[in-house]
């Protein structure tokens, strides 16, 4: 069933997200794992997982808040082992509904085609990732939203597109301007818009992932291959004009381990270099990331 968003020619449609909203305050959403959305540890890229959890969180929020609407205010995601599929499913539930905000948590799981969990020993009982989101509640008739909030939302739907025919970073036209400085650039296009006509929040997280992994990899020397494992995203303003550009700084290695962190700031260059998003990115070398286990 269609809910009028997104259009067929859209990033979310090309991910092929299928979603289901439960009768209470919960929802699931899943994608098929393809080489076009995976990182070098064999799991789905953190930025794509962030997109998935943003969608499933939005599905819950839309159901719980109607006739009001919402905007993602912050999103956190930690991936504890590669999300290798064959499908990856996010399961979201409401933690707290307040007057101005809604807090949601989501587990991310490797699942089989028919929907059962992939189990490998005791670790199959655990998620591959965990996320939280805060949504700001917007009045349904808010002048900031150009969306006509539907009176009824379906219980199941699928975003159906042609699918990605190349790696997601290429599909989004993300270019690395200066890896050592963590500077990347991405044009703004309808293909990436959310219901406000601005770049979708998951895409902003993906930009942070790319910039963070680049700057952290370069910090250890040429050819450093880092995989992002955790994202903490604060959405400050919409990215509408573009290009969206980044500035990054390396924090440091956490003492004694392979994990490293960077802070990525995203700016809307066409809107007076307005700061739109701050993303703290954690990453580790691909070899270490691929060895994810229960610990």
């Amino acid at each position, binding site marked *: 069933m269609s809910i009028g968003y997104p259009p067929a020619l859209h990033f979310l449609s090309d991910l092929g997200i299928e979603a289901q909203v439960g009768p209470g305050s919960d929802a699931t959403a899943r994608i098929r794992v393809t080489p076009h959305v995976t990182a070098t540890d064999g799991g789905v890229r953190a930025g794509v997982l962030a997109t998935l959890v943003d969608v499933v969180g939005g599905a819950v929020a839309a159901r719980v808040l109607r006739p009001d609407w919402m905007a993602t*205010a*912050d999103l*956190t995601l*930690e991936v*504890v*082992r590669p999300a290798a599929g064959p499908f990856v499913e996010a399961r979201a539930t409401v*933690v*707290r509904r307040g007057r*101005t*905000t809604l*807090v949601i*948590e989501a587990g991310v799981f490797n699942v089989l085609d028919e929907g059962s969990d992939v189990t490998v020993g*005791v*670790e199959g009982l*655990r*998620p*591959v990732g*965990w996320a*939280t989101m*805060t949504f*700001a509640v917007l009045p349904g008739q808010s002048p900031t939203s150009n969306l006509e909030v539907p009176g009824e939302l379906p219980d199941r739907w699928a975003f159906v597109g042609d699918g990605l025919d190349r790696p997601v970073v290429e599909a989004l036209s993300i270019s690395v301007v200066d890896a050592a400085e963590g500077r990347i650039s991405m044009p703004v296009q309808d293909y990436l818009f959310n219901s406000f006509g601005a770049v979708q929040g998951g895409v902003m997280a993906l930009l942070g992932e790319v910039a963070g992994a680049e700057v952290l990899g370069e910090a250890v020397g040429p050819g450093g291959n880092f995989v992002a*494992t*955790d994202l*903490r995203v*604060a959405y*400050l*303003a919409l990215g509408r004009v573009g290009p969206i550009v980044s500035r990054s700084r390396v*924090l*440091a*290695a*956490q*003492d*004694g*381990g*392979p*994990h490293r*962190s960077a*802070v990525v700031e995203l700016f809307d260059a066409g809107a007076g270099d307005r*700061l739109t998003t*701050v993303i*703290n990115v*954690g990453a*580790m070398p691909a070899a*270490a*990331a691929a*060895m*994810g*286990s*229960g*610990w």
Partner: protein
Amino acid sequence: MTEVSPDDAVAPDAGGPRRLVAEYFRLQQWEIPPTGGQERFSEFGGRAPVDDHQRGAGGGLRMGGLLTSVDSIGGILAGLSVQPDWIVTTSMMATIAHLSHRGPLRLHGRVLRRGRNAVVTGLDVVDEGNDDLAVAAVTMTSAVLDPGGMSLEFVRPVRSPMPPPNPDPQTPEEFFDIEPGEGPMTRLHLADRLRNPWGILHGGAVATLVDVAACRAVAGERADGAHGDPRGNEHAVALAAGDTVIHYLRPARVGPVEARCRVLGGRGGRTLVRVAVHDVGAADRLVDLASVAVLDV
């Protein structure tokens, strides 16, 4: 009109028991007004020593202590930006870069966004005693609220000196009245000295509880033969809390307060723990939700 210092804002009954949380971590604070008459918000600076009794297994100030200081700076920074209203912290997203600190630590905070209902602040922490090595970066969100009958007026620019060392130092577990133990549940008793001016559990106490509980949960699971340690655990490792996210959902007013943990897995010496904090005496309601990356050190 009531004029108060930042410490008084945290604890209006100056000299009373509530001042103890503010004094325990000995945070010095100073406002940095905007320059050149620009219509911007003040920034804020802070400095905290790393007293030996507050050091954790990583060698530096424990995450809970670090976030208590961050909460103080971010709180005053956000609060001043919305006066005459005030704020309450709703979430903290902390990235910890270094666990080992020489100290003192220096904090710097700025307002990233002030909206009608919320303020977002960004705070950086560096190790002043180690060439300003990056220690942490934190994004904090606060909800704007009506302070009710409490009138908060400040002498600007706001400054408060570093409190003196405590002659009878306590560990964070002792100070925050956290029961000894190990395993997936850790309990805190809600002593009056741990309440903020609104009578609810101090955000720093929550951060410290989450820190202690997450480390105990990982230690307990590794000691549990039912799950075992896939690495063999031939050599026991010390544990310290690193990157942390806390959502402050509802006030904890009654107590005792329980942190219930679930170890979710991890890689690269980094184990993720989900921590749900419940106010047992208030119908066991969920008051805080956190995730902590517990690090092998």
